């Protein structure tokens, strides 16, 4: 019962809201006068490349640091007690 009621209300509200809407047209998408988050699309999208390279680089460094930690731990276990 509740479901049916809510669906009916939803349909009503849709038709009501449609009355005084301002339509979004292709023009709005082509409008370059309004500044958007365009940094990533500027300069031939070079910043996207920079982002990708930095992600890979960060991954590599995290891997290096992890390996470093593992080796250090092993050294503490096996080297430091001996001398």
């Amino acid at each position, binding site marked *: 019962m509740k479901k049916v009621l809510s669906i009916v209300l939803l349909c009503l509200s849709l038709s009501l809201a449609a009355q005084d809407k301002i339509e979004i047209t292709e023009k709005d998408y082509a409008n370059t006068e309004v500044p958007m988050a365009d940094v990533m699309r500027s300069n031939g999208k*070079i910043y996207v*490349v*920079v982002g990708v*390279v*930095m992600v890979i*680089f960060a991954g590599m*460094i995290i891997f*290096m*640091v992890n*390996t*470093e930690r593992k*080796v*250090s731990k*092993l*050294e503490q276990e*096996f*080297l430091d007690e*001996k001398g």
Partner: protein
Amino acid sequence: MRKKWWKVLTVLLLTYSILGALLFDAPRLNILNETIRNLHFHVTMWFGMIILLTTSMVYAIKYLRSNNIDHDHMSVEFANVGILFGMLGLATGAFWANYAWGEPWSGDPKQNSSAIAMLIYFAYLVLRNSMSDPLQKARISSIYNIFAFATLIPLLFILPRMTDSSLHPGNGGNPGFNAYDLDSRLRMVFYPAVIAWTLLGVWIASLRIRVKRLRTVLED
């Protein structure tokens, strides 16, 4: 080796050099176009390789003088990372050449001789792994290492310059980047990049050396 500060420096310099290489103003040159930025990656590999292989050779001499097996560990691991850098240099060079020179391998004197140099160093690794006695292995491969280095230098720096047709800048009949009046701005990224990638190589080598030391302790 275990200290932290130089690893932080490595990461900072690498970050700076990668961002600088990709984003700083680059000279607009015909044919090269944006690939001039490869200078900060491809050439860097070779500079790093030379430094790492020199270090390897120094430790080979040290081993022969001291018979301390730890020097041999250092020698071989620096050689390993140096060879890795060299292979990356060859691969990036062929990739770049495909778009700048029209084909990945054009028999350029410097391409040929760097490939020969890499083969000589591959033989070093094969030679090492062909011997089971650790002392014999260390001694013979240290001697070979010195000779490999002695052929590396003429192969990379002398022979290509004695030819009269090389595509590489700065080699036979071809002016270096100095010919363009652009160097100082590229250098601001290039030299930090060389230091950064070399330090990364040292970091990798140091990790492998430490693993080797652990292994010798565990084997005893």
